């Protein structure tokens, strides 16, 4: 239920509000480095260290660029039921997930 509420809230947010939140809530440099490391090492366990896919789908801009930041960050935080994608909420805040989603859409080296 909580998850559905969060999805609804996210869906209700306008794009401009979301973009404002991204700029306002950018994690600091040390935390950004940690999140990128987590992305490559631990998300990379299923999606590949270069994010080109594995048991999980590719996370390159080609593959997920069409998805909104809201969708991507909600997937990161809550996982995808019925698939092996777990919720990463215990390991990052919503702002951090939004930042990471932006990185994914833009492409991570």
């Amino acid at each position, binding site marked *: 239920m909580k998850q559905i509420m969060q999805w609804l809230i996210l869906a209700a947010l306008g794009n401009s509000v979301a973009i404002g939140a991204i700029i306002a809530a950018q994690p600091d440099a040390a935390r950004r480095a940690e999140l990128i490391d987590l992305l*490559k*090492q*631990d998300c*990379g*366990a*299923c999606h*590949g*260290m*270069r994010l*080109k*896919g*594995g*048991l999980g789908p590719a996370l390159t801009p080609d593959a997920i660029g069409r998805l909104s930041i809201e969708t991507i960050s909600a997937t990161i935080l809550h*996982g995808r039921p019925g698939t*092996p994608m*777990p*919720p990463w909420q*215990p*390991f990052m805040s919503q702002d951090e997930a939004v930042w990471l989603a932006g990185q994914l859409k833009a492409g991570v080296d």
Partner: protein
Amino acid sequence: MRASMKSLFLIVWLLVMSSPAVAECQLRGTGDLALVIERATGSAQVIDTTHRRSLFHIDGLGDLSHASVVYSRDERYAYVFGRDGGLSKIDMLCGTLVKRIVQGGNSIGGAISQDGRFIAVSNYVPGGVKVFSADDLSLVLDLPATAIDADKNSKTVGLVDAPGERFVFSLYDTGEIWLLDMLDPAKPKVTKFTDVGRQPYDGLITPDGRYYIAGLFGEDGLAMLDLWHPEKGVTRIMDHYGRGERKLPVYKMPHLEGWAMAGDTAFLPAVGHHEVLVADRNGWKEKARIAVHGQPVFVMAQPDGRRIWVNFAFPDNDTVQVIDTESLKIIKTMKLGKGVLHMEFAPRGEAVWVSVRDRNHILMFDTRTLKQLAELPATKPSGIFLTARAHKTGL
């Protein structure tokens, strides 16, 4: 100006001469060598496990974020299966890349056939298995997996070799096990077993080559095929081992590699539980469950069967636990640093090598005293593969 040019030449000369890339081939046996995968840099090291030193550094192996290795029967050549579909043949005595092909878009692992003629690779993209000549890596067979939509086939996982020049693997998306017979490579035979269970994520074969077992992600339990009696089909073992209990989110898939066995007791990782499963091989029933530090990734028995070594998924991947196989008690918990990714035993079991990704080293432990014996530098190391695997079915 002249002097500085001279010193520049000297520096370049020193760099060239000290580079392991120009090291000469070794005149020695290969039985105590190992290949250590450096996942972030797409490189590998050949190490001498007797003298505990690095012999060669090999670059240009592509994306090794997931990688595995099999060996030629003479233990001279290593075949490295990379994430990016790369298949690389490495000369262990010369430290050189003999040949590299990119045979698929995305792979998970491979196997070498019983007589060493064929290398099979398990691919996610395009979903299926390809078989190559071990000699020159030329394509022998392209076997697409079951289609799941117009342009996609099921991912294949858990590919192992089996006696009789056969390969066995599982289809992740469609819940199948396929048995591929390469005895006559001109007429390969495929036997398909369907509805084996939801989302098989990996597989293993017992060292005698008789039982193929696939772990299931989508449900509790394992699927087993008796290769002495394939006509009996696939049966379910350890059914519903976690029934009624809430499964935890899984941050890294367990690996079924080799066979953790002590006497008649088998040890397996429980998916989504902080537990090691203990099964009685006679009847394949659950005997016990051992509560451990996190979700197990590798559950490996020492070659003497005396102890089980376990590493764990994120966020508990800084820990190794050692379990006594008689009492089923944890006898030691070691914190070795973030990213303990793999463990490999010396063939006779006196030592174990452990990779610690974020510490940039591999460690060697005495399996009797559990004391550390050596530490070798390696860049973001993951898999450690000893050449002794050349002579083991399923490895």
